[in-house]
């Protein structure tokens, strides 16, 4: 096993650029798309084009700003539209009497967060109107507010450690997503070394040697594991200690990373078994991998993907489980047993994929 492992290392030592590039890519993608300050300082322009525009704007701005970390600002229509079309702002909102429209030129994750906030306020208002059956809900609102000052039952929600429940941090989610996503490529291309060795005839030489087949596989897979694992740990350490992110208990994150790497190596092995040649693998694997975070909902706030079929497919890949476990550690101070389920699921995916994958790779020779 050791010589096979070392041979792979010697090859990569000659061209470390790929791995360094992937490490840089993980950090760059997180900085560009996942900087969490974006989400706390967002200002969104609102305007109305109705005849009673001023009245509508004032009513909704007050309600929208009532309980939100996003700041909604009344803006002139022309300016709001030009800001969006020229890329100065991602989104503006056209307000109507009882409805709204998003004005946007892109599909950034931030926009979905804004829409969630706006939709929440409009839905609440629609409910109040439905209860009072009149347009002016201010009396009922005051009544409810007074009542809620001293409610008959008060439910207080606390986090597991007793503190406030932290808000979902989309920047943190994207940090983990990009790191795990980019590592999938590194791991896949290393596992593909097995197919390359088979095609080049090196595999046959190894089979004829006194080294067992188990050792040959172990050498290759262990190397793929270490490279992927090393890449992710480096990225997490840079975020934690250089860039000042708080990614939670590092020990736990490292354990989750290790299990995720194991599971991803197995998944790559399964695809290597299906592809059978390095060329086909290089075609299939990079086509599948970018879809995984999309299906797993890794680019979107939790709950955005509600289709049960998509959720099922997303759960077949280790990414969603790793993300789930890492977010629970980073945001909710989860303990070991709190993320036992995603860890178990990743191990299960790993065992099944590895078993089927090796079986399929072995069938190549017939």
């Amino acid at each position, binding site marked *: 096993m050791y010589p096979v492992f070392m041979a792979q290392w010697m090859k990569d030592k000659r061209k470390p650029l790929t791995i360094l590039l992937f490490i840089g890519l993980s950090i760059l993608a997180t900085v560009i798309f996942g900087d969490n300050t974006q989400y706390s300082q967002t200002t969104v322009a609102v305007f109305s084009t109705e005849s009673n525009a001023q009245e509508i704007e004032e009513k909704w701005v007050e309600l929208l700003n009532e309980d939100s970390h996003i700041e909604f600002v009344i803006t002139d229509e022309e300016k709001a539209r030009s800001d969006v079309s020229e890329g100065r702002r991602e989104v503006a909102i056209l307000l109507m009497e009882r409805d709204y429209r998003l004005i946007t030129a892109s599909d950034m994750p931030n926009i979905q967060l804004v829409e969630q906030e706006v939709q929440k306020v409009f839905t609440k208002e629609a409910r109040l109107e439905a209860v009072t059956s009149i347009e002016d809900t201010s009396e009922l609102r005051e009544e409810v507010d007074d009542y809620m000052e001293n409610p008959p039952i008060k439910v207080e929600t606390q986090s597991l450690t007793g503190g406030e429940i932290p808000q979902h941090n989309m920047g943190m989610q994207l940090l983990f997503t990009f790191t795990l996503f980019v590592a999938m490529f590194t791991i896949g291309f290393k596992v593909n070394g097995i197919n390359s060795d088979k095609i080049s005839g090196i595999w046959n030489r190894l089979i004829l*040697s006194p080294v067992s087949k188990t050792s040959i596989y172990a050498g290759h897979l262990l190397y793929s594991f270490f490279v992927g694992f090393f890449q992710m740990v480096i990225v997490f350490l840079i975020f934690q200690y250089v860039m000042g992110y708080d990614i939670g208990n590092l020990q736990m994150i490292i354990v989750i990373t290790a299990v995720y790497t194991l599971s991803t190596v197995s998944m790559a092995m399964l695809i290597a078994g299906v592809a059978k040649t390095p060329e086909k693998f290089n075609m299939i694997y990079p086509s599948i991998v970018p879809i995984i975070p999309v299906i797993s909902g890794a680019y979107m706030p939790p709950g955005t993907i509600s289709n049960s079929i998509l959720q099922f497919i997303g759960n077949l890949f280790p990414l969603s489980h790793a993300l789930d476990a890492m977010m629970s550690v980073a945001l909710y101070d989860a303990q070991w047993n709190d993320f036992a389920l995603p860890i178990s699921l990743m191990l299960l995916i790993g065992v099944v994929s590895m078993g089927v994958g090796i079986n399929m790779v072995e069938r190549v020779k017939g």
Partner: protein
Amino acid sequence: MLETVNLTKTYKDKKAVDGIDIYLDKGESVGLLGPNGAGKSTTISMISSLLKPTSGDVRLNGESKIKDPSEIRRVLGVVPQEIALYEELSAYENLKFFGKIYKVKKDVLENRMQEVLEMVGLKERQKELVKTFSGGMKRRVNIAAALLHQPEILILDEPTVGIDPQSRNHILETVRKLNEEHGTTILYTSHYMEEVEQLCNRVYIMDHGKIVASGSKNELLSILSSEDTIQVQLSKTSDAIIEKVKGMEHVRRVDETSDGIRIISKKGSNILSDLVHVIENENSQISHFQVEIPSLEDVFLHLTGKTLRD
């Protein structure tokens, strides 16, 4: 030392190797000749235990090695047709890797590596990356990698395909030295008849998965001892000439060549006067006429109906 008994490999309904029996005595150099698709590589894969035969046996010193091939793997060195090396590593690093894989002892490995590098003439360039080597140099490293564990039997699967004459001569010389000076038993497959004639004591000729002839060079040539091969260069060749020559007495076979015809006739039969008559009647002329001494190529052509490069 090594023998196959009724060795057969069937893929679905097609027999790639059909009941072949070959043997190698210790210290022998044996050639396995055959055109593309004859089943040479499949035979080698079965002998070296990479492929399980559908039926038949592979025996080493009289003992079957199909179920437990570990011993046969220990005594065999296999040089595959493809360049089975890590091109991103140097020749030295490749050999070190294969030496470790073959569990050559650490204190012996370095000397052994230098020995085989010397043998294949790459000692001076051992630190260079394999990907920078010419095709011939890569093939030489490919051979060196199979020699590290000092195999008793060396199987070479077309080791000179697509390389320059200098590397080819070097490889042939290396194989000859291994056989004559080190006593290594050789099984050499090739497309090139002259290589086999030069290197091997005995030859097996394979076609369509079967051994169609075997023996020493002289034994194989004796197959044609009852025949003459006549090369006739013509001013014009036609189907009518070929058909009429085929119909002549003592003529056994006629093949069209690039500039005339080749006739295989009964040895000693005087067909010249009749041949001139037939050709002149078809408005052609003989510009050159030669009775050839048969070569193994002729034997191969006689047995399979095609040339080795077909």
